[in-house]
């Protein structure tokens, strides 16, 4: 088995070899390592992308806006890097759309890292494939077959506000159950607990 460390190093060097700067190559190395750690086919997608990278043209998005449309497919690496770099401004947009996107699986790790930076989950939809990126701790998805995805027609990125997955009633019910582990204190013990005394105005 190839270790994650080997993947990181080799991807970094390969990324430099296709023409990215060393700084970007470092980011790609870390990103593919992350995808592989989460069990997503990062290396396969990257390998395929780099096979055509030099011969085909890809759009390098600069400033990302709410709606990003391009006639030629967006480069997932430059899009990912800029998404990561602009994350504090982008989160204000709530939702961001891209149309015509190359090798979108490679975009995922940059969003995953962004989720950790801003402390918000990010929902990502790549055509019909859905991903929930949880603070760079895990990725929840309906994309399980590990296929190479060469192109996405539409990508939607949505910042998920920090809120619970349960309602107040459900929380109270469980809390009431948890109270059954508590013991009623006697009056004597209450008198000697921390802070108990004649006055606190001292």
């Amino acid at each position, binding site marked *: 088995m*190839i*270790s994650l460390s080997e993947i990181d190093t080799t991807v970094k060097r390969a990324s430099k070899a296709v023409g990215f700067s060393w*700084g970007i190559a*470092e980011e790609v190395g870390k990103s593919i390592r992350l995808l592989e750690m989460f069990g997503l086919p990062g290396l396969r997608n990257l390998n395929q992308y780099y096979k055509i990278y030099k011969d085909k043209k890809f759009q390098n998005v600069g400033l990302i806006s709410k709606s990003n449309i391009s006639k030629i497919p967006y480069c997932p690496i430059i899009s990912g890097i800029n998404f990561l770099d602009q994350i504090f401004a982008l989160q204000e947009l709530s939702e961001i759309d891209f149309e015509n996107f190359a090798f979108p699986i490679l975009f995922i790790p940059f969003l995953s890292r962004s989720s950790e930076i801003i402390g918000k989950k990010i929902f990502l939809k790549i055509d019909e494939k859905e991903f929930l990126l949880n603070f760079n701790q895990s990725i929840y998805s309906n994309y399980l077959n590990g296929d190479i995805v060469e192109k996405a027609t539409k990508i939607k990125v949505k910042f998920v506000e920090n809120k619970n997955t349960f309602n107040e009633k459900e929380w109270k019910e469980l809390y009431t159950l948890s109270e059954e582990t508590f013991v009623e204190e006697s009056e004597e013990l209450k008198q000697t607990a921390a802070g108990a005394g004649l006055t606190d105005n001292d």
Partner: protein
Amino acid sequence: MEVQLRDPKVVMKLSKLGSFHQSKLSFLRSFLKEFKDWKYKRDLFELDENGYGRAVYSLKKNNRIYSLVCFANPINDEERSDRVIATKWDAAFVLHDGIPTKKDLERLYNDVPKQEVGRLSYKELTLSRANKSMRIFNHVVESLSQGIQPEKEKLLEVGYLYRTTAVYGSGKFGLADRFRIKDRDEICGPFRLEMMLVYLVRQFTFDQVNHIAKQKNSRKAVELDKEICRNLGIGNSTGLGMAPFIVNHPTLLNNWILAREISLKKIREIKNVKENEAELFKKFLKKSLKNITSWNTDSEFQKKKILCLLRDMEKLIHFLNKDFDFKGEYSFNKLYLWCEQNLKDECIEYIVSLVMEPYDEIITPLIKQMSSDEEKCFNIPTQRNIENLRNILEKNYSEIIKIDFSKKENNQNFWFISKNKEEPRLADRYMEHGSELEQPLAIARDIKILYERISNQKNSLSIGRFLIENNDLRHVVRRAFISETFPYAEIQDNIIGSKLVPIDMLRLKLSFFGAVKFDPRSDKWLRICMFQGAPLANDLESFDDGWIYNSLN
């Protein structure tokens, strides 16, 4: 009294870093300290009459077991090479996580001797190989088989029976990634498992010579005297491959140096040095002199350094005997200040290491802070602005940005990865081809370019916006922000300049390993010795932290 940490711009000069010595913080010492109460066992020893075959050694505590698997192979003298391009070695080793099964041993038998071209699994932690020291190996075997101990003088000239030529870890060649094991308490310190491998290899070398001698002459043969064994370590040949490590791991480098600097600061801040502490310092100072006088090298560069160290030590001892009293307040601070004024770097740093000896309570907590979770510092704070970046560059790289890179000599060299062995190398930019494939190690030059590039940018421009058009400098933008939090993360020198002495970079790293007897064989590689004087595996329980000063006594 508060003592300031030493200025990174002084400490991080390569000439200073290249004068570092082993200390209580060194990894091989902290490894032994951590594992002193682990149970050592030789689990398997299947060598033929020539000493070829396999062996397994283990260290165990509670439910955790680490096993060293050794394979000793016949090779011809002309095949024996310490260079990384070698493909055969006298012995090959791997540290296995747990007890290897029969199947594991078969798998490892096929792959471990192949080293870089073999494949390991997540169950293996570190990998190494070693060659016999032909100067003494056969002499030892012959002597023992005749029932006599080998000549001590001859042994001490070399200091080891075997020399490792590489020790790999952290995911190389399929070995376990660091993340799988990083939460284990016992390896909370850099290079613990590499140190464990080397330590157990040392035991194998003794067992092997005893075994061969006995096979040669079972009636007469004697075992190598334990005291002699204790005074032998494991050699190591190290080249440029190690040098970029300290550039590629800035937070780790910071944590090593910071631990050293904090310990010095805390010791200088001690108001009243106790008598036993002063005595311990003086005792180790005296004992350590033998480590200097027995330091053999053919390198003129190192000979000069050793001579300078010896002269300064004489000066220091004279000062301690005639003009110094530990009974005064802040005596270690006074001593350090005197050293700074009167001695050269080689001796100053020697003393910085020595003053740590009496202070377990200061050093032990620092050892745990010498690892680094590098992922945590990887993200660039892109919400910061150009003014922040400029301030960092002017503060942390003030000497670097003065370097004139239009001068040929400041651009003389480039670092690259060699195609045949995938190892870092250094070459003359104007003489050799390949500089277009330069590794991102010219930090000083790229920092200077960054500084010039931001000179006409608005202060308020965010780093995120700046990077849209300047991602070619992304690697140094990242480093600059790292240096803000980690003051000792950067070497304050130009490592592509014509004046670079690469072995300074090796010496820095090896001193933290705990190596002694640095023996430069050129300006690009050196030999060292590790674990000389260390307790033998069977005697780990009677561990004495000052063992490093016991060698050769």
